[in-house]
């Protein structure tokens, strides 16, 4: 097992014993003359050593009790195929976009009021009066578009590189679920500013759902929370946008990442499969 896992990085290895430290004066040291010149480098060195030792102790304490380091080592220092390029960062970029959306969304929720009579005013308040409100709202607004673009680029990369093939079919399925959830986030978030564009886009979007045979009328009523657009509709979209969909996306990202760590990533298709040993490169 230990032979298969890559070696610990230097800062995680147990520190060698330091005999020269014993019998030395403490950090206030340098008793004879020139305290200004002699003590400074020593104190710096000691502080540095102390910090290294201290952090190693904390890491050791946590590791002993959680067993996290084999997991983290496997997850963070896993082998990736030679030829991995910037194309392989699109998934992480999408996840970063999601995290950025989550963080800005949390702060927007501090000022937003999901009420049909006050939603528009609260968004106007965020945009025009709250300090940096325009920036945070702008990040959330444009970030949603960026996330959609990134998720499609990531999907295109996976498709073109054939990375969805055995044994990564479930990866692909989870990815498609994430795509649908992300689009649902975009749809539910579009209503929240509650201006004319939001309202009519949502009306049209719900009615597109209503056009499905058999289930359409029920889906539309569920999305609206009634037969017509009403007071419950906005609260419903707010709840979906704030709680249900982000929770599901977080869980699905967890499953997606677990499989990334478990199965590794695919080599680029132009790398020859019969020279497997050459294809491995450790980073």
């Amino acid at each position, binding site marked *: 097992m230990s032979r298969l896992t890559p070696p610990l990085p230097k800062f995680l290895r147990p520190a060698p014993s330091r005999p020269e430290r014993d019998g030395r004066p403490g950090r206030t040291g340098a008793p004879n003359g020139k305290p200004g010149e002699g003590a400074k480098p020593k104190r710096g060195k000691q502080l540095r050593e102390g910090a290294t030792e201290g952090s190693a102790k904390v890491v050791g304490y946590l590791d002993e009790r959680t067993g996290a380091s084999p997991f983290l080592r496997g997850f963070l220092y896993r082998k990736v195929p030679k030829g991995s390029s910037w194309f392989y960062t699109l998934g992480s970029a999408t996840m970063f976009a999601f995290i950025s959306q989550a963080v800005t969304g949390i702060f927007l929720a501090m000022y937003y009021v999901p009420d*049909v*009579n006050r939603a528009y005013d609260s968004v106007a308040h965020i945009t025009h009066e709250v300090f940096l409100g325009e920036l945070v709202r702008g990040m959330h607004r444009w970030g949603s578009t960026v996330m959609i673009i990134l998720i499609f680029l990531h999907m295109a990369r996976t498709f073109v590189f054939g990375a969805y093939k055995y044994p990564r079919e479930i990866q692909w399925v989870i990815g498609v679920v994430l795509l649908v959830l992300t689009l649902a986030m975009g749809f539910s978030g579009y209503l929240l500013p*509650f201006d004319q564009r939001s*309202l*009519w886009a949502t*009306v*049209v979007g*719900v*009615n*597109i759902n*209503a*056009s499905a*045979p*058999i289930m*359409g*009328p*029920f889906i*539309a*009523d*569920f999305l*609206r*929370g*009634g*037969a*017509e*657009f*009403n*007071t*419950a509709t906005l609260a419903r979209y707010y709840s979906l946008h704030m709680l249900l969909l982000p929770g599901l996306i977080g869980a699905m990202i967890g499953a997606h990442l677990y499989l990334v760590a478990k199965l590794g990533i695919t080599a680029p298709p132009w790398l020859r499969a019969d020279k497997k040993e050459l294809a491995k490169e450790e980073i």
Partner: protein
Amino acid sequence: MAENRSPKNSAGKSPYTADRGMAGAFEGETVTRRRFMTTGALAAGGIASAAFALPALGFALGPLFEDGTNEAWQDVGAEDEFDPSSYVQRVINIVPDAGEAGKTTIYVRKFDDKQDMPSPSDEEQKLDPLPYVAMSTRCAHLGCPVRFYQAPKRFVCPCHGGVYNFQGIVDGGPPVRPLDRFYTRVRNGRVEVGERFSVNSELRRFKPRDPSQHLDGFWQYLYPARPST
């Protein structure tokens, strides 16, 4: 205990716990206590989960079975404000308490025997036609608000180019059925507007449907009416 008095299962073991030499087994007992406890714990967990999941689901799905629209008759003006030749714009409240989003524009005019075709629903039930035509502005394509233009006597939708004639019947574009209407009546010389209804291309009345849902031919069976409780 070990005497062979019962049929054996596929593993060659007797279904009776007593036959398998289990301590404290009862006569005729076939379910081991471990299995009984496992099943019981799973059932209790299932009941506990259902106890909060089902009400929560019903809470979210409840509006599917409620109407929620304004059922009160709303005054839109005196009788002499409307005539058969043109529509008059009025604003009514279709969802109470929803602020601006609960209001909608409607177009009202007097019903006219000469130019209006009566609804087959009225003929079958031997009723007089509704005294006024109250046209909904909700486009039957995807629900954008249509506008009435007096010169061509057409309703036009800005979103995807749906066009309806003076009767609200589709003249062109993507809408699948005529514009919805509202019930009308006259009380004390005032015109009042009631609930929404949808119509098919013969102006037969149906319970209100969402835009994009067909009401003609075979297609009407694919879009069931909202269940009423």
